[in-house]
């Protein structure tokens, strides 16, 4: 019997003004797995991620119908604390987004917001997070230098470490390897596979091959609709839907 679902989407539709970005999505995401969201551009992948930590709240004129439950709690409930939700559901963006601070302060940013000020616990959590993101060995001697001086791949792993420092339950990654070389990509994929031991990971892969390499389950989206969802093996070998098959085999995309 697989684990109970961590995240449940029920009839979720999402709108930017009058434009529909997600259409009646029903989906269950289980813990300690990598769930890959596959689909061409403008199929609602980023919207789906950002609706799960309510970053879409920053955009004016959005609305939704349906429900998102995380651990059986409706996250659009008015009682919910947004900073709390975003700490539980961490997000890594498609481009590396280090803040113009030192490496240390970038990772410590989240814990500091939470009110952690003492040096020692901060140092511990920074080291732990950087180790989990497979970055520690490369930069442990220059924690106080600017994060902007890191390479693109290092910056992206820094962003992963920054999310890990929140001690989240869910980690969402939106094409985290889009600007990266194959070596950096490989090291990020390696860290993802390690991280799924502890976290629920939702990944928008930057290509189909990446999904087939790391994902446990895959959902294929097209124009805001969830076309098909299944195990990675099933989706890549015996897709049920013709559109999924066409996308996987590269007929469009």
């Amino acid at each position, binding site marked *: 019997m697989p684990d109970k679902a961590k995240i449940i989407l029920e009839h979720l539709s999402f709108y930017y003004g009058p434009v529909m970005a997600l259409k009646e999505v029903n989906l269950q995401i289980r813990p300690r797995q990598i769930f890959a969201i596959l689909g061409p551009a403008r199929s609602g992948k980023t919207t789906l991620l950002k609706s799960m*930590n309510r*970053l879409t709240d*920053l955009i*004016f004129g959005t609305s939704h119908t349906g429900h998102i439950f995380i651990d059986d709690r409706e996250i659009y409930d008015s009682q919910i604390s*947004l*900073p*709390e939700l*975003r*700490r539980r559901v*961490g*997000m890594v*963006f498609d*481009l590396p*987004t280090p*803040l*113009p*601070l*030192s490496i240390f302060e970038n990772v410590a*940013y*989240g814990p*500091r*917001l*939470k009110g952690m000020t003492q040096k020692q616990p901060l140092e511990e959590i920074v080291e732990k997070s950087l180790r989990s993101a497979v970055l520690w060995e490369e930069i442990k001697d220059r924690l106080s*230098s*600017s*994060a*902007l*001086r890191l390479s693109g791949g290092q910056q992206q792993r820094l962003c992963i470490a*920054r*999310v890990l420092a*929140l001690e989240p339950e869910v980690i969402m990654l939106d094409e985290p390897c889009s600007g990266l070389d194959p070596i950096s990509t490989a090291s990020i994929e390696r860290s993802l596979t390690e991280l799924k031991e502890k976290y629920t990971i939702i990944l928008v892969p930057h290509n189909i091959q990446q999904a087939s390499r790391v994902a446990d389950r895959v959902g294929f989206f097209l124009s805001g609709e969830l076309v098909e969802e299944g195990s990675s093996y099933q989706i890549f070998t015996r897709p049920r839907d013709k559109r999924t098959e066409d996308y996987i085999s590269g007929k469009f995309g």
Partner: protein
Amino acid sequence: MIISRHTTQRLAKGVIWVAAFSTLAVMIWILLQVLVEGVPLLNFKFFLDSPRQMGRTGGIFSTIIGTLALTAVAIVIATPLGVGTAVFLREYTRESRVSRMIRFGTDCLAGVPSIIFGLFGFVFFVIFLRMGWSILSGGLTLATMILPTIICTAEEAIKAIPHSYREVSFALGGTRWQTVARAILPNALPGIFTGVLLGVGRSVGETAAIILTAGSSLLMPTSLFSPIRTMSVHFYILAREGISMEMAYATGAALILLILVINTLANWLLWRYVRRVGG
């Protein structure tokens, strides 16, 4: 007549060079005029002695203190107000009727001649609030005068912060205020600083509004309620009343040096800050 592309190109280049160099020339000419006449009269005694015989002899110490005090009051009041307004306009409200009204108000304020601010300050601070001719009245008046500049530059500085900084800060569990305080303001600081420096320049150079609100006393101020004379006002009175042209030039030269010192110091502080943050 047809002008070839090549000729147009050379013409344009010529006009642009003339524009740039005449600006430079005018600036150098003004500076030289004042410095050549004034600098030979400068010495330590001039800076540190009090003015005597209406400024005919002695130094300008009390006017330096007056200038610094007045500018400091203006900046200390206008900066938090201006930056607060800019943060409100950029981070706490969308484009709306209220934000448009505030912007229209600041634009109007920016276009008002300084003597009108002086009159307002005189009627409101000096008389109605009974602050008299004082550093406080003058500082408050200057603050209202430089407020639009500070709001405008701070808004531009905040606007220039990449949207991703906000998104990241919110995504890491930041509240709106934490995002403003930790991700936005520290990075907007250099731009905000520029606005504050412009404000300093305007405060130091102002005369009309100051005579009406801070007076023109040559006595050493003892509190925020003391009337003072700033260096610009001193310069104006020395020249206008024909008291001493030499002393006027010397004061002018000292004023230019003071502004240079303030700007250099400010740029140095800013440079150190930017380096620490790591650009």
